[in-house]
């Protein structure tokens, strides 16, 4: 394992210290780890907060700033952060307008954020928690942990962050987050495994002519392994799995702010259809250079056109990564006027910036 790190136990802390040095406009807290906007809490504004294991940079810490997240909680590498990080982050970012947690659907993240929501609610903080579960590679039944949260996370953080900036209240932010999640679908693949620093060796072994299809973002193995093939063939296969994915129904738990209890909701995502407009997001898993993403985008644009889907906006680059893993993911998020307006709104973060 060759990585630009010092002691293995210091990896996350030192990277945060680097962020603090580079971005004085952020407030980086070391014990426990969390990042908030330097001007937090922003009066009257809902605090949009996310978090998850480290190793996915720039997500989430790199998306803290005007027009996106108010706070982010980085866990250890590929390990969900703990409730006290989320609690402290929520307390630091809450202006009184409440806290919206954006939670990727992994058992660890879900349980830790649930505990944190309970802790914040116990302090009288209005809190909502929305699950992101967009990974069509996970073939789910009602009885499993459900789909993972992957690429759509970046899109939701941008859009809901802009809405909060524009004055949406907590319920409106939560509704928008739920809607964008229901409009988003993703799938990923790996050319190589990554190496968790503390593990010191690749999470899975992949032959010189093999690829792993349907990987998540924790360097975990995917749905299936297959022989390496062309960028066009891989892209087409993944794009079609996303576009042709059926309606998806699952039960999620959300926090009922009024009654202070968890309630279960059954939610259904409608499939994409000809005539839809989308944000097309081609993401590097970290080790794949942007040049290769353009080869993927070329084919993705052709498949979308063929299916009657209009690409209204695109995002191409390493935004939700798995350390140095080579590979990519495709995310398509259906858009409407509300979503597009907030996508186009100014954003000023270390990882995503325009209009500011």
């Amino acid at each position: 394992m060759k990585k630009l790190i010092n002691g293995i136990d210091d990896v996350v802390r030192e990277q945060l210290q680097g962020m603090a040095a580079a971005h004085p406009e952020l407030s980086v807290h070391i014990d426990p780890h969390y990042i908030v906007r330097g001007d937090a809490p922003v009066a009257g504004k809902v605090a949009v907060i996310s978090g998850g294991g480290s190793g996915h940079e720039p997500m989430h810490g790199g998306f803290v700033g005007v027009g996106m997240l108010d706070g982010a909680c980085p866990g250890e590498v590929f390990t969900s952060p703990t409730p006290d990080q989320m609690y402290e982050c929520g307390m630091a970012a809450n202006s009184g307008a409440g806290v919206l947690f954006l939670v990727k659907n992994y058992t660890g993240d879900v349980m830790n954020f649930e505990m944190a929501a309970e802790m914040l609610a116990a302090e009288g903080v209005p809190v909502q928690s929305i699950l992101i579960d967009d990974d069509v590679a996970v073939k789910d039944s009602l009885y499993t942990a459900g789909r993972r949260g992957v690429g759509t996370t970046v899109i939701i953080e941008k859009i809901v962050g802009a809405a909060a900036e524009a004055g949406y209240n907590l319920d409106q932010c939560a509704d928008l987050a739920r809607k964008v999640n229901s409009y988003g679908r993703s799938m990923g693949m790996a050319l190589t495994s990554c190496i968790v620093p503390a593990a010191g060796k690749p999470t899975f072994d992949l032959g010189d002519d093999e690829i792993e299809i349907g990987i998540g973002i924790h360097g975990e193995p995917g749905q299936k392994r297959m022989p390496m093939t062309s960028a066009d063939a891989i892209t087409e296969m993944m794009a079609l799995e996303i576009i042709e994915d059926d309606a998806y129904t699952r039960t999620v738990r959300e926090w009922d702010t009024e009654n202070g209890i968890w309630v279960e909701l059954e939610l259904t995502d409608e499939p994409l259809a000809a005539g839809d407009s989308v944000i097309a997001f081609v993401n590097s898993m970290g080790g794949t250079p942007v040049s290769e993403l353009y080869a993927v985008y070329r084919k993705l644009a052709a498949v979308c056109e063929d299916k009657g889907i209009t690409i209204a906006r695109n995002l191409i680059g390493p935004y939700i990564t798995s350390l140095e893993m080579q590979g990519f993911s495709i995310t398509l998020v259906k858009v409407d006027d509300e979503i597009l307006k907030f996508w186009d709104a100014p954003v000023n973060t270390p990882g995503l910036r325009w209009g500011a």
Partner: protein
Amino acid sequence: MLSVLTLSQNLMTVTKAEILKWITLSADVMQENKQYLTDLDSPIGDADHGINMARGFKKVLERLPTVQDKDIGNILKTTGMALISSVGGASGPLYGTFFMRAAAPVMSKEVLTDDDLVAMLDMGLEGVISRGRANLGDKTMVDGWTPALEALRTAFANGADTKTAMQACVAGAEQGMQDTIPMLAKKGRASYLGERSVGHQDPGATSTYFLLNALLEAIS
């Protein structure tokens, strides 16, 4: 090992010192098996379970001196809180909740009866289930805890002494751990793998076995 307070088989069988020893031995075994548990978490997870458990129990050890003089309930509660605030992942809230809930029936006690021991572990498992909502057979730590506690209760019902009952408990945990191998995962990260999760032993069920085995050692 006989406590001076032992009156009958069913009374005052586990001392506070033994509980403290359990926690220390658990920290040791997690540190020793850090690589092994992480390796188990590679094919069907994200290669961090051993790292998580070792980090968590290291934090527990740091906090232990502050509750050395407190009762068993408080020791377990502190253990749970340290795990919750340092492990993260799925196992952090699960083991954290286990110890927090296990603390409830033994609050302000300095020594435990066999009934206390069962109540403590039972309440812990209930916490794990209510937090993680896994069913038996989902290929999680629940598949380690459940047969272990069943075996413990059965042994006590059959008149076994504490140590013999705990031996049965650990054997149950070991069996439960091995039985996760052919299971198809339905909860946790391994569930994303579908059929490919079959044939691998669950890391969480394995750390559960280590934890119960540490308890057996502590009281032996």
